[in-house]
């Protein structure tokens, strides 16, 4: 038998069900692997004792026939999800040693279904970043290294999640996506990333960045694993006013492999001038794979695509400036003294927020300030509607869209950190999906000339996750991505 840490989520689940190994053995194997992974910096908090307690409870349930859908499966949780009694920081100094007195709905759903917590995963501070370099815990290293052995970023903001899944430090991980923060890191690490429809997973207990864009989802090894994870993460939650009251389908049952007659739209505006030829070639390969599987390829237009990033960089900072007003050193987190209360606020926020968070809070404050509100904020909301309408019109001609996930493969740590705008361009293909509230799925589809993973993105209709996952699995099968990174970190 292969190592227990080589198994994907579905294989581990089936092995537990057939009693090939126990939850305790599976968890112990992962704990040992996590312990030897410090060079990746994926975990910011390890919870091995908690994991073993949960695994023992799972073994009892597996024995007496009361096992849940994720019983005994060890996972990592992005440090943006509040976990009761377990430090949660959003990778920001301003949260200090915050210990949530409550559990996020998404993680509670996972524990109710039997999952086991291995620890909390690194991310960009408050999920603001595309490389995991803005974390107060320092950057995460991609398990894949560059051609000369240089360290690469794992993408962001869910860089701990993507690195952990690629390095097999857990059978799956939770993540969140505001502008591409699940799909871009998945593409950079050869993993599968699913950003569900806005309203599908509860935002309750997830540290807020931009509330009209934030959505939780899984990063996994396979499309099937993403389907299984989403089935547990998704729910209606009355504590989130934007949670949608809608049954959670059996996503795994949707993976029939049959996409005959499905119309796949190819948006011409995603063919940008600066796109490397290998990404262009991979996209064409993806089109051919889906056509060969019986899909019909349709050219579509999303005319306002070019304006998605500018609109996002008004809307997301505006919402962030409002959401992050709560970090004032009064109710939780690290306080800095001041001569009076205003001085205490200013000192607390100056010391607690990193550079990128400060930039975004200030851009948002500017966009919402008197005299600029209509010119920037309202204008961006109007453009957001045009972007959403573009998708509605495209979906009159097709069922799902196929695009590249990112304009490049993973880049070197430190390469883009000095240029915020260049960093923002990472999300050029993913951010439209958040603005329209649609589901998006990144599937590992190939390698670049340096052997680094590249992803293709599928975009679905609102609440079209079943179809999205079905096409995703067909794409995954055709691509046959089996590459694993060399294990330099455990040496």
């Amino acid at each position, binding site marked *: 038998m292969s190592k227990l840490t080589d198994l994907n989520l579905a294989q581990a689940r089936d092995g537990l069900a057939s009693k090939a190994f126990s939850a305790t053995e599976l968890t112990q194997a992962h704990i040992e692997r996590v312990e030897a992974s410090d060079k990746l910096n994926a975990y910011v908090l390890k919870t091995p004792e908690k994991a073993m307690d949960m695994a023992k409870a799972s073994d009892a349930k597996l024995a007496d026939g009361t096992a849940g859908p994720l019983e005994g499966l060890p996972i990592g949780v992005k440090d943006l999800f509040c976990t009761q009694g377990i430090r949660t920081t959003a990778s920001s100094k301003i949260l200090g040693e*915050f*210990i949530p*007195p409550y559990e996020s709905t998404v993680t509670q759903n996972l524990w109710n279904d039997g999952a086991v917590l291995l620890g909390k995963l690194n991310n960009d501070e408050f999920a603001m970043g595309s490389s995991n370099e803005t974390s107060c815990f320092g950057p995460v290293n991609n398990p894949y290294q560059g051609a000369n052995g240089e360290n690469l970023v794992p993408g962001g903001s869910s860089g701990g999640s993507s690195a952990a899944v690629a390095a097999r430090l857990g059978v799956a991980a939770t993540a969140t996506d505001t502008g591409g923060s699940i799909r871009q890191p998945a593409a950079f690490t050869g993993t599968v990333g699913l950003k569900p429809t*806005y*309203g599908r997973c509860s935002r309750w207990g997830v540290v807020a960045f931009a509330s*009209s864009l934030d959505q939780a989802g899984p990063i996994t090894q396979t499309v099937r694993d993403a389907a299984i994870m989403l089935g547990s993460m998704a729910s209606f939650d009355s504590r989130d*006013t*934007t949670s949608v009251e809608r049954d959670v389908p059996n996503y795994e049952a949707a993976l029939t492999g049959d996409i005959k007659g499905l119309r796949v739209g190819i948006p011409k505006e995603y063919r940008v001038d600066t796109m490397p030829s290998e990404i262009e070639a991979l996209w064409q390969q993806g089109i051919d794979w889906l056509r060969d599987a019986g899909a019909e390829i349709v050219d579509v237009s999303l005319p306002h695509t*070019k*304006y998605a990033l*500018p*609109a996002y*960089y*008004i809307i997301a900072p505006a919402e962030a*400036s409002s959401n992050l*007003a709560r970090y*004032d*050193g*009064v*109710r*939780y987190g*690290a*306080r800095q*003294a*001041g001569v*009076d*209360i205003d*001085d205490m*606020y*200013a*000192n607390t*926020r*100056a010391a607690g*927020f990193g550079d990128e968070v*400060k*930039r975004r*809070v*200030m*851009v948002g*404050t*500017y966009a919402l*300030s008197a005299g*600029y509100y209509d*010119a*920037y904020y*309202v*204008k*961006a*909301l*109007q*453009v*957001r*509607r*045009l972007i*959403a309408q573009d998708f509605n019109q495209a979906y009159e001609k097709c069922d799902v869209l196929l695009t590249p996930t990112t304009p490049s493969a993973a880049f070197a740590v430190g390469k883009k950190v000095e240029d*915020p*705008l260049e960093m*923002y361009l990472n999300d050029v293909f993913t951010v439209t999906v958040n603005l*329209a*509230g649609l589901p998006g799925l990144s599937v590992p589809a190939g390698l670049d000339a340096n052997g680094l993973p590249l992803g293709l993105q599928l975009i679905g209709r609102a609440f079209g996750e079943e179809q999205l996952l079905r096409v995703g699995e067909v794409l995954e099968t055709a691509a046959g991505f089996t590459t694993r990174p060399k294990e330099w970190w455990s040496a």
Partner: protein
Amino acid sequence: MSVDEKTVRRIATLARIGLSEAEVPALAKELNAIIGFVEQLSEVDTTGVQPFTSPVENKMRRREDVVSDGGYAQDVLANAPEKDDEYFAVPKVVD
């Protein structure tokens, strides 16, 4: 529209982020680059377009007007940097 150093200081005050004078010029440059980038939106004709505020068109759900939660002040205060009995404590606000 360009963001000058005076504007940077004003935004920082509004955002309650303390800035040293040494940080202001670099921040002005970065904010200008970002604002310059988003200025592209002015090319788009948005006449008559309703602003899009949420992807979900939920009506606000109603519930019974009853106490449904609460009664655990110590949990709420557990992470406070400074507290006094059942209160958060802050520097003196009124002289």
